[in-house]
C-alpha cells in the first residue's frame, strides 16, 4: 500500500463516541487530522469546504443537508449522500427496495381517522414508524385502532407486522454477520449469532451489490407462515456493536473509506 499524505477528514455524526470516536482515533494514529461535526457545531457554509473529504456517519436531516452542500461543491462524501437519503426516508426506501425486487411489508399512510374509517381490523397488528428515520427509535406496535390518537391530524406511516424471526445482519465488504434479535429491538441489544444461514447472507450481499455499498446493515424478518424474508429496515452506517465477524470493523471500514476516497479523487 502506498503511503498517503495526511488528510483533513470531517465526520458528520450525531455523537462523538462509539464508532465515530473509534474511527477518529484510528485515522489520527495514521497521521490524519479528523474533526467531528456534531449538530451544535455544524455550520453549513463555505467553512466546510476546507476538508479533503467527509464521512456521513449520521443520516439526520441536517447531516444530509451538509452532505448535499458538500456534493454540490465537489467535496467527496462517503457513504453516498443520495443512497443515505433514500434509506433515511421510509417512503423512498420502500419504493427503491420494491423496484429492486426485495420483499417489504405492506405500507399504509393516513391520519388516525382515515385508518379508523377505512382499514379492516384484519390488517392489525401494524408497526408505526417515523417517515424520516432508521433504526428502532420511536417505533411501536399498533395492536388495534385504539392505539392511535384519534384526535391527531398527523399523517402516520404504518407497516404490516410480520410474524416471525427477526434478524440484524451486518456486512463489511463480503463478510456478513447474522444476528437473531428480539422484535423491534435496537442494534445494541443482546442478540444470538446465527451461522450458516445461506439465504440471509445471499440476500444481504445482493443488497450490497445492487446499491454498491461497502458496509451497512439490514433488519430482516423471516415470516413464520411462508418462510419468506422481508426487509424491514436498512442502514448505511450502523455502530457494528454486535459485530462478531473475523475482521476488525474499525480497521476494515476505515481502510475501505480511504480506498474509496482515493478512487473517487482519482476519477
Amino acid at each position, binding site marked *: 500500500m502506498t503511503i498517503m499524505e495526511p488528510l483533513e477528514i470531517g465526520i458528520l455524526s450525531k455523537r462523538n463516541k462509539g464508532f465515530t470516536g473509534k474511527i477518529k482515533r484510528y485515522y489520527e494514529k495514521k497521521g490524519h487530522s479528523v474533526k467531528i461535526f456534531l449538530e451544535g457545531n455544524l455550520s453549513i457554509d463555505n467553512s466546510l469546504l476546507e476538508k479533503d473529504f467527509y464521512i456521513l456517519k449520521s443520516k439526520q436531516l441536517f447531516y444530509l443537508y451538509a452532505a*448535499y452542500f458538500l456534493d454540490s461543491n465537489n467535496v467527496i462524501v462517503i457513504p453516498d449522500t443520495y443512497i443515505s437519503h433514500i434509506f433515511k426516508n421510509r417512503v423512498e426506501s420502500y419504493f427503491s427496495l420494491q423496484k429492486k425486487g426485495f420483499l417489504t411489508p405492506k405500507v399504509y399512510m393516513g391520519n388516525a381517522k382515515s385508518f379508523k374509517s377505512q382499514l379492516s381490523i384484519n390488517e392489525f397488528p401494524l408497526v408505526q414508524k417515523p417517515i424520516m428515520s432508521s433504526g428502532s427509535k420511536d417505533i411501536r406496535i399498533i395492536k388495534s385502532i385504539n392505539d392511535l390518537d384519534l384526535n391527531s391530524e398527523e399523517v402516520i406511516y404504518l407497516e404490516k407486522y410480520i410474524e416471525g424471526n427477526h434478524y440484524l445482519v451486518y456486512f463489511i465488504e463480503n463478510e456478513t454477520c447474522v444476528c437473531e434479535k428480539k422484535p423491534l429491538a435496537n442494534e445494541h441489544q443482546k442478540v444470538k449469532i446465527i451461522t450458516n444461514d445461506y439465504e440471509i447472507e445471499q440476500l444481504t450481499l445482493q443488497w450490497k451489490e445492487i446499491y454498491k455499498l461497502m458496509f451497512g446493515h439490514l433488519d430482516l424478518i423471516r415470516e413464520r407462515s411462508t418462510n419468506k424474508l422481508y426487509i424491514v429496515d436498512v442502514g448505511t452506517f450502523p455502530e457494528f456493536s454486535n459485530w462478531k465477524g473475523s475482521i476488525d470493523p474499525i480497521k476494515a471500514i476505515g481502510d475501505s473509506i480511504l480506498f474509496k476516497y482515493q478512487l473517487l479523487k482519482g476519477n
Partner: protein
Amino acid sequence: MVKIGLIIDNYHLEKKVMQFLEYCRNIAEVSIYVEEEYLLDFSGNKFNEDIFFAKAKGDLVLSIVKLIEESTQIPVINSSKGIFLAFNRFLNSVLLRKAGINIPDFCLLPLGLMPPFKEYIIKNIIDQKNYSFNPKINKEEGNLKVIDIRALEEAEGINAKYNHLYYQEFIKSKWEYKIYTIGEELYFFKQLPILVNPDKMKSRTEIPNIPEIAEMAHKATHILDLEISSIDFLKSKEGIYYLTDINSSPNFNYLKNGPQIVGDYLISRAKR
C-alpha cells in the same frame, strides 16, 4: 372526457380551487383525493385518471404522488421531486446555486452563530405548511435583519424540530418580481416587497417579459422538475436579479384566467 385527479388538502380545497374546479368540471371528469381523508395503501391503489394535479405539499400528498409515479404512467403535476425540492429551502438553494442561477448568499447555522453578511433574512428551512410569511423587522446599526417568525418557532418554539436557522443575504430591491410558470409559459408581475407593503396585491401589476428572469425561471423549473410554480425575484442596486423563493403550489387565482390556463394545461398534458 379526460379524467383529472386533484390531490389536495382541506385548506387548498376550501380556499384556493373553487374557480378551478368549476372550470374543470365542464371540460373533464374530476376526482378529488383529500389528504385529511385519504388512506394510502401502497399496494392496493388502482388509479384510472389521465392526469393528476397536486395542489398541496404535505407528507401524504407527496407519498400519493410518489406512488402514482412509481406504479403508473400517469403524468403528475408537479412531480414528487419538484414538490419536495421546492419546500426544502436549503436543498433548492444548493441545487440552484450549483446550476449557476443567481441566488442570494445563504447558510445554515446552529442557533447562536451569526452569518457572514451584514443584512439578512431568516427564513423557514422547510416550507411545507399552509401559513404565510410572518416577518419581524429589526434594524441594528443601520443594517436590516428580518426574521420570519415561522423559522424561529421551528428552531426555538415549544415543538422545535431542529436547532438551526437558514440565513439568506438581504437584497434591497424597489420591487419584488413574481413570476408564474405554467409549462413553458411565464407570466410576469411586480409588486412592492411585502416588507414595504404587506398587502402584496395592492401594488401588483403585470409587466412585460424580462429576459434575464425568464432564463433563470426556465432553468430553475427544469432543475427542480416543476411544471407549475411561482418564483420570486429581487433586483439589487447593481441591477442583478436574484431568485429568492420558489413555490410548487402557487395561488393561480391571482393570474387573469389562471384557473382556465391551469385547467387547459392539465388537459394538454393528460395521458393519451
